[in-house]
Structure formats: C-alpha cells, structure tokens
C-alpha cells in the first residue's frame, strides 16, 4: 500500500464521518463502526510492523505532498523505530478503548466521533514529519479531549476539562513560537528532516537578548512537551484530569497522550538542538528524579485509587526523563560511553511503551471496580480478593507490573534506565532507586487495603470481571508479560533508530561550540 501511513491516520476520520450519518438512536451500530474502524487501524499497524525494516534507522514509508508551497508547508509522513511503537500503542489502545467505553450510554454518537477524532490527532503527531503538520495534529487532540472529559467525566469534569485544555494550550503556544523561531532561523522550512540538519548549524552561536538561541528554543519546546509528560512542576492537571475523565479516556490519556511529550522531546529537541541536550541533560535528570520521588510520595498518600494510579504515572514518566538524559554519556567528554547511552535511551523509549500498556491496564481495572462499587475510595473496600479472585489476579498483575517486577516489561525498561544513567548521574540515580521502593510501597499498600483482610459484607454480590472487560485487559497483560520475558522484538525494532538518534545528538552536539 502506498499511502499506508495516511490510511492509518485518516481512517478514524472516515469512521467519524460514517458515524455522523448513523441515526443517533442506533447506538449499537455506532459502537460497532467505531470498533471496526479501530480494528482495521490496528490491523494496518500490524501489517506495517510486518513490512517495517528494522535494520534501517531512518524514516520509512515516507509520504510527501505539496500543501502550502508559499509558506513551505508540506504534508510529510514517515515512520521510524521511535514512532512505530507509539503508533502501535495508539492503535492498540484506541481499539481497546472502544470496548472499554462500550457502556457509555450518554450521547453515544458524539462520544465515539470525538474518540475517533482524538485517535487521528494522536496518530498524526506520531507520524508527521512536517513541523506545521505536527503542530496541527498536536492541537487537534485538545478539543476532543476537552469534550470527552467535560461531558462524560466525573463530578468535577468541567473544572478538569478546562484545566487540561488551558495547561496544554499554554504549553503549545510556546511551542508554536519555538517552531516559528526555528523556521525563520533555519532556512524557512517546516520539514523536520531538513531542520534536523540545518538547525544545529544555523543556531550555533546565535544570541537573543544575550541568551543563546538554542537555550531559548529548547526551553520553549521543553515547556510545551513537559506539560504533556507531565514533568514536575507542570503536572497538576494530570491527577485531576485522570480522576474526572471516563475510563477509556483515562486509558488513552495515560497510555498514549503522556508519551507525546517524551516523543516530542526525542524527535525534536534531541535532533534539532543537540547542543541543548548537553546543556539541559542535568536538569532533565533532576526533574526526572523529582517526578519519581514526588509522584511516588503523592501516590502513597492518596485515598482515591484513580488518583493513586494517576500519580504513579507522574512517577513512571520520571524514569523516562532520567533515561533520556543518559544520552550524553556517549559524548567524548563523558568517555564515549555508548553502552550507557544506549541503555538509557533504549530504556526511556521502552519505558514509554511499557507505561502505555501498564497504566492503560491499571486504569481499565480501576474503571472495572468503579463501575461496580461506584466509588474508588481505597479504604472503602477490603477483602475483595475472596469475592473477585480473577479481578484480583489481574490487579495483582497490573500492580506488580507497575512496581517494576522482573518478568514484566516495566522492570527491563527501568533497569535499563538506571544502568544507563548511572555513569553520568550517580547521585540522582541512587536517590531515584528509592523510587522503586516507594513504587512497591504504594502499590502493595493499596493492594492490601483493597483486596486483603476479612471479606467486606457490603460487596458480597459484586459481580466478577466480565468477558468484555477481560478482553480489554488481557492483550495488555500479555504484551507486558511477553516483552518482560523476551524484550528483543521491541528493542530490535527501536535499536537502529536509537543508534542514529544517539549518534546525531553526540556528533552534532558539543558543549563548547554553541555557548
């Protein structure tokens, strides 16, 4: 197929249009259409995986079309080892998300239309190679998200929705400025491939108000991405949005949307501002550390299960930041330690994917219990293990995966991150290993309070997790397990791209030239 990537991106829009023509009382049909469309999308990504050439570190399946020549805006798509896992993750979670939302009965038509629109936006960001296109997709996600939280969310949904919207918009307008600054300083193009080559040279030594242009652009982009990750101190929208959003949206939010920030940093900051990487790596690691510890401590104190899981996302994304920072190990000033750089970066990318599957699983499971008990107060349960053994088993799997138990993919990525970052950031890594203790503490404590202890009479007739719900959790659990036992399929996929990325950061970035 020639336009495979375009199909993957625009298929949901097609579905959205189809849904628009279905009368709104035929809610089953609407759900089926949504399921079919995201199913086909998933199949397409699997097909893409089959024909994807893992040995190539550059972009594949490139598409290029004239768009607005007067401003050098082009429609460019492409996929590489960095974006493919994310595309797959989105397709998978998008597909699962449809089934997670099967119980939605309020304005089904609107819900699934927006859901598919969101899908397109996210896919677009991962596949766009034109900065303008990238930005459009980046923003397209916001509005569906606002509605999905605001209409189908919990009691504080309006507040949560607007907060999410404002936070992210504030970040993205700064990003827009940075994009334009890059455009005008680096040869008037939005083509990322060109910018990756011209930006490091063009920005070299440029000063704005006495500040290095690289630093300014880096910080602008970073804030835009950091809000999405979210990096402390831009994280406060996250617990709220998660708590208020309907389950499927929490799943997508945690599973995919948070990755956009990291993806953006790796795709843009790292390639276009390699000098900035060296300048900022320390701060990145420190922020990662704060995320890890702060997120874990907040999670430890939560009484709302969903909020706990939300803070665990803050905590987990912190590891990713630490891993990313390890890329500087490969520079000459850090002793050409390519091993560390690969471990750290590989760990970071792997952690992104793993957090996607694991947190999605966690949120689905939180949704399952919320649907039944209509509350999420950790202390309000107790002894559920006896009443819902299968559910308990899945929560146990998800929690253990979340706390980084070997055998689950999260362990490998966290271990790689620590190993990779250790040579460069010894103290930070040592303190952040405390995070793995805290991880275990908050997960196990919550697990004990919910499932252990004498059976709670109140929940005697709580129905066990049903087939549909199992269908949503099992694939994620299986992926987590398989990759936890044998991570080669994933790591081989990203390996070539990762090495290209590390090489470009290290060879183009140097500490001395730019500042």
């Amino acid at each position, binding site marked *: 197929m020639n336009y495979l990537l375009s199909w993957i991106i625009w298929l949901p829009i097609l579905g959205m249009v189809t849904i628009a023509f279905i009368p709104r009382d035929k809610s089953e049909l609407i759900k089926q259409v949504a399921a079919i469309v995201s199913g086909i999308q998933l199949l397409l990504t699997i097909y893409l995986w089959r024909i994807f050439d893992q040995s190539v570190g550059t972009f594949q399946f490139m598409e290029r079309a004239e*768009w*607005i*020549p*007067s*401003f050098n805006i082009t429609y460019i798509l492409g996929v590489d080892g960095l974006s493919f896992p994310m595309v797959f993750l989105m397709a998978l979670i998008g597909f699962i998300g449809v089934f997670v939302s099967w119980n939605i009965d*309020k*304005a089904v038509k609107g819900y699934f239309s927006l859901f598919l629109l969101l899908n397109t936006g996210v896919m677009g960001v991962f596949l766009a190679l034109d900065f303008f296109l990238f*930005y*459009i997709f980046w*923003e*397209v996600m*916001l*509005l569906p998200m*606002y*509605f999905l939280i*605001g*209409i189908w969310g919990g009691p504080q*949904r*309006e507040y949560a*929705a*607007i907060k999410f*919207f*404002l936070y992210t*918009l*504030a970040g993205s*307008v*700064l990003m*827009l*400025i940075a994009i*334009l*600054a890059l*455009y*005008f300083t680096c040869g008037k193009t939005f083509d990322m491939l060109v910018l990756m080559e011209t930006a490091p040279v063009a920005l070299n030594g440029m000063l*704005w*108000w006495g500040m290095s*242009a690289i630093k300014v652009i880096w910080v602008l982009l970073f804030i835009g991405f950091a809000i999405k990750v979210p990096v402390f101190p831009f994280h406060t929208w996250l617990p709220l949005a998660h708590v208020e959003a309907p389950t499927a949206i929490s799943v997508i939010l945690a599973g995919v949307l948070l990755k956009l920030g990291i993806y953006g940093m790796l795709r843009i900051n790292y390639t276009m501002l390699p000098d900035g990487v060296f300048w900022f790596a320390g701060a990145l690691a420190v922020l990662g550390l704060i995320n890890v510890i702060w997120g874990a401590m907040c999670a430890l104190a939560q009484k709302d299960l969903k909020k706990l899981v939300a803070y665990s996302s803050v905590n987990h994304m912190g590891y990713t930041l630490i891993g990313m920072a390890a890329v500087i190990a490969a520079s000459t000033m850090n002793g050409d330690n390519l091993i560390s750089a690969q471990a750290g970066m590989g760990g970071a990318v792997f952690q992104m994917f793993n957090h996607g599957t694991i947190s999605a699983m966690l949120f689905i499971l939180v949704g399952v219990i919320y649907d039944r008990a209509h509350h999420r107060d950790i202390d309000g349960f107790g002894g559920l293990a006896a009443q819902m053994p299968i559910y308990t088993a899945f929560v146990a799997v998800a929690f253990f995966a979340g706390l980084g138990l070997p055998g689950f993919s999260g362990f490998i990525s966290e271990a790689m991150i620590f190993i990779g970052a250790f040579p460069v950031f010894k103290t930070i890594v040592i303190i952040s290993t405390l995070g793995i203790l805290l991880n275990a503490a908050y997960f196990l404590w919550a697990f004990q309070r919910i499932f252990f202890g004498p059976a709670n009479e109140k929940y005697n007739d709580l129905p066990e997790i049903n087939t549909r719900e199992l269908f949503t959790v099992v694939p994620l659990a299986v992926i987590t397990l398989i990759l936890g036992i044998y991570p080669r399929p994933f790591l081989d996929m990203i390996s070539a791209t990762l090495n290209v990325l590390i090489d470009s950061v290290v060879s183009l970035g140097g500490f001395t030239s730019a500042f």
Partner: protein
Amino acid sequence: MSNFNSLAYYWPELILTVTILVAVIADLCYRREQSINVAWWVLGGLALTLFAVRMGGSSVSPLFMGMVASDPFSDFFKVLILLSTALVILMSFNSNELKDYRVGEYFSILSILSFGLFLMVSAIDILMVYLAIEIVSIMSFFLAGYLKKNPHSNEASLKYVIYGAFSSGIMLYGLSILFGLTGTTKFFEMQNAISSLGSDSNLALILSVVFILVGFGYKISAVPFHFWTPDVYEGSPTTITAYLSVAPKAAGFALLIRFFNQVFGDGTAMTSESWMAVNNLPWPELMAVLAAATMTVGNLVAIQQNSVKRMLAYSSIAHAGYMMMALPLMSQSGVYGIMIYLVVYLFMNLGAFFVLIYVQSEVGGETFNDFDSLGWKMPFIGILMTLFMVSLTGLPPTAGFIGKFYIFASVIEAGSQYYWLAFVGALNSVVSLYYYIRVVKHMYLIGERSESIGLPSSNLVTLVLIVLAIPTFIFGWYFGPLTDWVNQSFVIYQGM
C-alpha cells in the same frame, strides 16, 4: 489622474452610489411592512459592486488628483467590506430587534456606510482620510441608535457620537499639525517632506502622531481609546455590532497600514521586505506597546463578562490587539499577516455574532446562561458555535489558527527584539480560551441533555451560517487559496 479620467477606474464606487440612491428611492415606494424589501435592492447593488471590483483589474493609480488610490490592496478590502455588508444584511432579516422599526432606511444607511469604508481603504490624502472617517462615523452613529425606543441603543449612539466626534477632533488637530510641518495633504509628499525635516521637529511630529493615533485607535478600538467599544457594541442592534466589529475595523487597519507606513515609513515601505520608521520616529515601539496592552485588556476584561454579546465586544478589542502586533514590524509579511487575519476574522466573528443573533431570537437572551445545553437542543447551532469559538481562540484546524499563525510568524520573522510581543500574544490567546470555551461549556457541559432536536427555523439563517462556517473550517487546513488571494492583492500604490 484628472477627475474625469478617474471615473473610468471608479466603477465600484459609482455603482455603490447608484445603489444608495436606488435604495433611498425604493424605500420611499414601499409601505412600512414591506420596507424590508429594500434589502434586496441593496444586495443586488452590492453584488454588482463586487463584480465591478473584481473586474477592475490590477491597475495601480491615483484617482481624482491624488485623493484616492486604485490598487489591488484597496480592492481586497473592498471585497471584505462588501462581503460583510451583504452578510449582515442577510442576517438582518432574522433579527428580532429590528422588527418594530421601519428598516428601509437601515439598509440604505448600511450602503452609505460601505461607501465611506471604500473611501477609507483607498484614501491617500489626509483630507480624504478625515472625510471618510466622518462618513463612516456618522452612519455608524445612526445605526447604533437605530432602535429609537430602546434606551440602551440610544445611550450607545450618544456615547458613540460624542466619543467619535471627540477623537476625530483630536485627530484633526494632529493632522493640522502634520499639515503645518509638511505643507501638503498628500501621503507621499508628506513622507518626502518629513524625511527632509531635521530632528528638531521630532517633538511636533510625535505630538501629531499621537493625536492621529487617537482617531485611528478609536476606529480599531485600541487601548486606551477602546472605552466606547463595549458600551456601544452592547447597546447597538446585534447585527450592527457584528458589522461594526468587522468592516470598519478592517477599513481602519487598511488606513493604518497605508498611512503609517507610507507617511511615517522610510520611503521604501511595501516595496522592500522590511523598512524603517522615518527619522527613527519611535512610533513602532509605541504601536507594539499599544498592541500588547490592547489584547491584554480585551482578554482580561472579556473573562469577566456575563453577556456573550459584551464578551464578544471585548474579544474584538483583543483581536485588534493581535493584528496590531504586526504593525510595528514594518515588514511585508506583517501586513500580509494582518490581511489574512482580517479575512478569517470576518468569517469567524460574523459567525459568532450571527449565532448570537439566532440564539437571541430563539431563546430570548444573550447571556451565557441562555446558551445552557444549547448544543444538545440545537446540534447544528452548537457545532457551528463551537467551531467559531475554537476559531476565535485560534486553535487548529480552524481558520483562526491560520490568522494567528501568520501574525506570529511575521512577529518572529522580524527578529528577536519583538519576541516578547509574540509571548504576550501567545499567552493572551491562552487566556482567550477561558471565555470562548465558556460558551462551549454552557452549550454542552451545563444543563441537561435534551432528547428533542431543533433545527434552525429559517433556511436563510442556515445558509448564512454555513457560508461562514465553511471557510472558517476549510481555511484552517487548506489556506493556499487564501494566501494566494492575499498575495495577489498585495500591490499598493506607491506614489508617483
């Protein structure tokens, strides 16, 4: 060009004049209830005018001995004016407010107003500047106070007339000083004279610049000359509010661009990529500060409003601020950005106002609470209003984003000394999300979902809204035709 020769290039205005006359005469012939039919005459005239404008070709020449210029730049604005006038007239059919009045006059005044705006966008002589502004103002006073029995409308027109007269008076004083310094009323001669003046006359020049700015600032409602705007916008009939927020503003910007760049520019204005202020007059810095102040004040106060109409009034101040960002840059891309912004602003702002008019007539109010759960009751209106709100905020993939994008792009292109302005603008657009999305919130997030769906009662309304919505959406991701049009129109009379 002599007066007679000029007429050959003056077809649009001539047709418009005839339209005005026809409208006045037709009004005399109709009975009170039927006077609304005048609108069709006017619409026909406007269509002919539009045709004439488009046929006019791309000639660039001064007409009537250098009073007005005929160039694609002014044609561009003329099209905008005609479009907004026609749309407002169409929407007026459905206005509840006008029902109690004889409306024939209303339409003829609108066409006179358009004529004034035509003059404004093509004026290259300060006499014509004053004349045009006065024509526009006086007609606006009429229209603002058209609802004779409505005290608010009265109050609006009183405030408008006094504030208008006051600011045009100050502007006139400034123009008189400028006349004294240069001894001419023609833009290009003035520019020449100023560039040969020594720096000792800078004080007087600054005085005149500031005084002139009072008049222009009043027209585009820039801070601190914006105070009339909310009150007048709120009191006027909503159709007129919509019109005032678009057409005169567009014309005001055309005038500002022409006047400031060609009189206070360094003589290479519009011909080179970017240029400097004549004698290093500090007006660009002034303009930048005013732009920042304008959008900030507009946005912050808009947050506070409980009436959607008044909110839109303040938001129009904010939009003026965004456009003003591009003025101090003195670059082609800045002017370009303003032109693009004006086109998309026309569609989205008129759209928002027209939805408001429709909601007024259906629900009976114009506060946020009147929009409660509207999105469920009238999905068509809800979706369109959402589109307009999102576009006004400047989110892709709507036209509003493209407008902002070009403005920001021009600011960034101008170099790092204006980055702060881009920051202020960017953060302001975040703030603007607060109140735009509030409308959406009331439409969808508040109140019960209703099972019954209402479709717009009038096909005309549906048509007009769709006409506005399509470009608002399409230009968001396919703006090639738009930029091409602006590109072709970017030919400005440069003096002899």
